[in-house]
């Protein structure tokens, strides 16, 4: 082991795991809000792609990663706005619109990329890291977890922020009521449509941010279909987490670690066909599902548009 798995290599693997986990985390946290409020947001893959594309465009032309994150989040939110208008406001089927948006953004971003970047394939410089003093000096762990771009810490902080909102604020109550019994929320004087719209827009912004991180930091560039199903994994994580943000974090990290593990196993020269090794992350999640998926209680009104006074 010692020869192959140097400290540097191990921390690079873990670093990679974190980098791979962050887009999933953001997407999962985003999806969680929508689901809590009763909207099954299948369009999240499209929102991530929009975020990835616009995030990259923003960062590339402005030279500022932060601006890129901002445009990425805005891009995701813009797609979410369509979803909110169609699915929340006029109550169209969430699956139809979600999948249609995903297809559309796959095509649209690929199209834009073709006309804009397919000759130059621009790439961003390395994202600068915010080094956390002391902690980053711990061997292996330090460079793996405490030398990331500031946005990574913010994303992790968001986990606790969301936890606080869900459990300790009126907004959290509103979201839960919107998903479990929207009529009760309505008669309590809170506009269900508005609550759900806010939830969906937040989802879009977070998914867009996740996409922007994926493009700008994860890959440093944009290419068509770059998200590769990350949005769908986000849906899985959100459902698996049963409304608790911390579980989204664990799930995303588990997935990231499994990805790195596949690299580690290959580098260690374990002669299993790579195709089999690469099933590992999905197997891990599937096993989690078998073990913990029991009665994954979803909001009662999930997927059902709310119409005031309908019977």
């Amino acid at each position, binding site marked *: 082991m010692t020869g192959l798995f140097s400290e540097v290599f191990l921390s690079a693997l873990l670093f990679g795991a974190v980098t791979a986990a962050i887009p999933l985390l953001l997407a999962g946290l985003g999806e969680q809000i929508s689901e809590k409020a009763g909207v099954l947001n299948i369009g999240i893959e499209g929102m991530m792609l929009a975020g990835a594309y616009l995030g990259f465009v923003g960062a590339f032309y402005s030279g500022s990663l932060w601006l890129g994150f901002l445009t990425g989040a805005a891009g995701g939110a813009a797609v979410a706005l369509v979803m909110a208008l169609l699915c929340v406001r006029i109550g169209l089927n969430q699956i139809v619109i979600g999948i249609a948006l995903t297809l559309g953004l796959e095509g649209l971003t690929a199209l834009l990329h073709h006309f804009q970047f397919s000759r130059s394939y621009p790439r961003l410089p390395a994202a600068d890291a915010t080094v956390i003093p002391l902690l980053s000096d711990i061997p292996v762990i330090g460079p793996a977890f405490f030398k990331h771009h500031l946005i990574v810490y913010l994303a992790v902080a968001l986990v606790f922020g969301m936890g606080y909102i869900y459990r300790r604020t*009126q907004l959290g109550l509103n979201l839960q*009521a919107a998903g*479990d*019994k929207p009529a009760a929320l309505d*008669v*309590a*004087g809170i506009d269900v449509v508005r609550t759900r719209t806010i939830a969906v827009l937040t989802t879009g912004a977070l998914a867009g941010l996740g996409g922007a991180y994926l493009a700008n930091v994860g890959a440093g560039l944009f290419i068509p279909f770059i998200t590769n199903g990350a949005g769908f994994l986000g849906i899985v994580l959100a459902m698996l987490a049963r409304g608790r943000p911390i579980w989204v974090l664990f799930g995303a990290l588990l997935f990231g670690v499994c990805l790195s593990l596949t690299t580690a196993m290959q580098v260690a020269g374990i002669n299993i066909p790579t195709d089999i090794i690469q099933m590992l992350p999905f197997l891990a999640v599937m096993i989690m599902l078998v073990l913990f998926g029991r009665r994954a209680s979803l909001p009662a009104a999930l997927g059902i548009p709310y119409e005031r006074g309908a*019977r």
Partner: protein
Amino acid sequence: MSGFSSSSVAGRDIVALEGVTKRFPGIVANDSVDLSIRPGEVHVLLGENGAGKSTLIGMLSGLQQPDEGRILVDGKPTPITSPRHALALGIGTVFQHMMLVPTLTVAENLLLGGPWWQRPRTEELAARVAEITGTLGITVKLQAKVSELSLGEQQQVEILRAMLRNSRLLILDESTSMLTPKGIDELGALMRRLVEQGLAIVFITHKLKEAAAFGDRISVLKLGRKVGEIPPERFRALGEQEIVAEIVELMFGKQKDDPEAVERPVRTARAGAAPLLQVADLAVAPTDNAPGLSSISFDIRPGEILGIAGIDGNGQKQLAEALAGQRTATSGSVRLDGAAIETLSVGERRRRGLRYLTDDRLGEGTVGTFPVSINFFLKQVGAAPFWRNGVEQRAEIDKRATQLVREYDVRTPSLKTPVARLSGGNIQKVLLARELAEGAKVVIFNKPTYGLDLANTLASRQRIRDTAARGLAVLLISTDLEELLGMCDRIAVIANGALVGTVENVDDARTKVGRLMIGLAA
């Protein structure tokens, strides 16, 4: 939202409806209704199922908009655009259907609606709740999840919530349907105190006695129209009996003495006959949100009606479900006509003649989006003659459904109407028709008249009596003691999942059952 003192002049309308009309596909739910709601008055709204009472309330509380006519608030025409608007106008409503979030605690439900950025103000709430519950004479468990509460307890929470809002108009849509007799009396007294403070109250009920006892003014709706009103002056002039008589006339157009007067059951039980249903030592494990059952034993003979009395949430539903096979019993035996059935499936028990009329009409009794016709046969899917070789015989289904609709007087625009669009009473008729179909031997009725109007209640009760008279065994679960006293041969009392005693329904049954219910020996 708050801040309305009792200074509003009595006699002037807080809210008035002028020619309000509301239509739904295929039906006119309200047809130019005029109504005046005044401070200092309990305005009772009466009417049969589907008369349009709840629709009217829906418009007052901002859930729905009138198609024609207008609503005046403090004399000014005011379209009530949303529930929030209604709350801001000081209109607080307890809806007929539960409007609590089951996954939140009682406290959280009461706090729902506060500014979104705030932390829920739990301490403040606890103080105010203590204040109100003190005068109400009820207790609420603020930290309990709503899904763990019985329907009765949930109703109390809803009333409490309306009170917390400092409304100047309080609307109670069938809020007594789940309360105990004592609870009903307390609610009546509370309403009286509130109107004396200058509030206006709209009170909807199907119990004429409650109307007479608590009201100041009565309006009667029929088929969406207002067919009559008894103003306070007259109301005070009349005695209870006369008021009831007048209401009955307004509602049904025919004279009748106290229709709810207890009719002694015709004794049809054959004392010597072998019991049709024998339950011995039945036990069910408790779950997160439901009490368990322990050592339940009873027999029912052919033609006999056994009542189960008790405060809602003491295991009545578990008992019914365990008998029907929807809930697994941990021990005990159930014999139907001598044969053990405790291990059989729901479907097999039904085929052997055990029928269960659920109290949750929309939740499990029907498939709301399916047509009325199909809902008649939900428990017979695949059976001849409605299905042959698994293929639906639509003509047969429609023929029989038409017959049942006529026989049970189901008021529906058509056979194809989704059953959820019917009013509660008519849904109940669909269920009755389904459960009493051929081959029934033992029928479990769970709160069969809950939410039904007077005519439907009487009709349902008559059906139940007829059922027993045909030689079937009947288990009648009800929270309405009057109903049980009026119908049963024997009454067992359930408390905390156990039968605490069984009483022959003879002269002093009322006191005996009452004593059992409050935990004393009969």
